């Protein structure tokens, strides 16, 4: 089976200044891949490159088996959705209006969303338990609610791969759990997710695989249990880290 997203020998960076090199990754349906690394390690640069917003300095990216670089944006958007770290628009859109924008990859250039698109957007919001927010202005919602709306937009986009840049970074405890559950349920329905996080516990709870990046290169890549070890995380974050296994099997990391 063709992997949904594949990167081979990738070097990412700005202009001709490499930030991160030697990246190989493969994302299969239903898989959650967690990207861990200190601030400034190049996680966002890697994501921007995977999304085709930044050209790779070397190597290649395959999206559902086809080279990403020459693909038109609509085709990329049908296969690959992005959940940004936070909402960037200063406009007071309604939540439903924003989720509807996820339909644009499936509409012709002159088309506007109709009943079918609205039904899909409402279904996406319903699946995340936020259908009640449809008529609210996003500028009046909390950070957690906005994050859920962005995830709903990615669901409505119908892409089989979703890139999430620190989806829970600015969220409170309850919203962190809600977003985590949303990510798990997406993966359980076959969507592949690649996300970055600063919380090793969360990575271990959500993901199957992890990619550890720091100092301009990949430190480790593979199954969570094998990759997220005391020694590797200690090297990654440059402080001693100790791994504990809780009674329910969950991994817990202490500084």
């Amino acid at each position: 089976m063709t992997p949904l997203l594949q990167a081979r020998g990738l070097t990412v960076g700005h202009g001709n200044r490499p930030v991160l090199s030697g990246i190989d990754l493969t994302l299969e349906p239903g898989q959650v891949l967690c990207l861990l690394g200190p601030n400034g390690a190049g996680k966002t640069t890697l994501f921007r490159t995977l999304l085709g917003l930044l050209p790779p300095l070397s190597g290649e990216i395959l999206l559902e088996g086809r080279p990403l670089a020459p693909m038109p944006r609509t085709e990329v958007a049908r296969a690959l959705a992005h959940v940004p770290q936070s909402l960037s628009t200063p406009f007071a859109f309604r939540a439903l209006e924003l989720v509807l924008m996820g339909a644009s990859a499936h509409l012709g250039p002159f088309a506007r969303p109709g009943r079918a698109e609205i039904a899909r957007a409402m279904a996406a919001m319903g699946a995340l338990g936020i259908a009640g927010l449809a008529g609210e202005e996003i500028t009046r919602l909390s950070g957690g609610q906005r994050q859920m709306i962005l995830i709903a937009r990615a669901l409505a986009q119908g892409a089989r791969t979703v890139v999430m840049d620190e989806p829970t970074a600015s969220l409170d405890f309850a919203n962190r759990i809600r977003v985590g559950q949303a990510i798990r349920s997406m993966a359980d329905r076959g969507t592949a997710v690649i996300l970055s996080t600063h919380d090793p516990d969360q990575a271990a709870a959500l993901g199957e695989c992890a990619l550890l990046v720091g100092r301009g290169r990949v430190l480790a890549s593979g199954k969570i249990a094998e990759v997220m070890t005391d020694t590797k995380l200690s090297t990654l974050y440059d402080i001693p880290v100790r791994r504990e296994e809780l009674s329910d099997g969950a991994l817990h990391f202490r500084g």
Partner: protein
Amino acid sequence: MPPFRRCWVTERSLAPLLLAGLALALLAGIAIGPFPLSLRRIAEVLAGGGDAQSATVLWNIRLPRVFAAALVGAALAAAGTAYQTAFRNPLVSPDILGVSAGAGFGAVLGILLGLPVLAIQLTGFATGLATVALVLVLSFSLRGGGQVLVMVLCGIAVGALAGAGISLVKLLADPEQQLPAITFWLMGSLAGAKRTDVAAALPAIVAGLMPLVLLRWRIGLLALGNDEAKTLGVEATRLRLLIIACATLMTSAAVSMAGVVGWIGLMVPHMARLLTGPRFDRLLPAATLIGAGFMVLVDTAARSIAQMEVPLGILTAVLGAPVFVWLLARGSRGWAE
């Protein structure tokens, strides 16, 4: 879609309300003037009857002028809406980016050379587009590139340059005939609007407006910023350039017909946004209709409030400058509210 309540009017009643307002403005524009036409007389002439004088005034003077005013207002308001969306900035408008001055320079040059109306439009469009391009290149190559302030200041600088070019043309113009025409035209006026002028500007304005109307929903996604719009499947950079070209075409056509009429492109989109909210697909039609009606009313005032014609640019500046200050005072909240 569930009905959303905006502050003053509901989504459903907005279109009939704006159309009714435009119809009233058009009627007022046709009726009021040095030779007043009563509603009954207008009806008579339109039905094919009426006295010869009324018919001449209606067909040859009032209707072309009112139609020209509506066209200019619609074009400038739509262009302003498009620029604000393309640059994601509430303070940009044809005047502030220097497009009006740039197009004005080209058109004045055309007048000096005695070119036909269509050629004047073309030179106006070419210099208008060159002005936008120059402003963009300058503001992105400077430090803090692409920032609002840098872009606005570059627009002022390039606009001043175009202003210098206009002064040079005035110096070279024949002081008996060309100079008064150029001076009056630069202040904005529809006093001499003829059917042929309207016919020359109409295709350019329609050509600029059509892509914006057809692509209006997609254009709305640009409000999210370049990266987010791209990941949603929009060729954001290409779309932005198309919008700028369309808006510049409309501005140039309006300028070459009515002269430099400032402030409409800044004021009207904000008036419309109060009614529709931020969605471009609803904002564009509303701003276009309001711009048309507003311009007709301003032009009616221009020929009625004094013995002589008051230039349009003077009236719009008197109305527009306070609005600009108000926008500055509200700061960036202008977008979020």
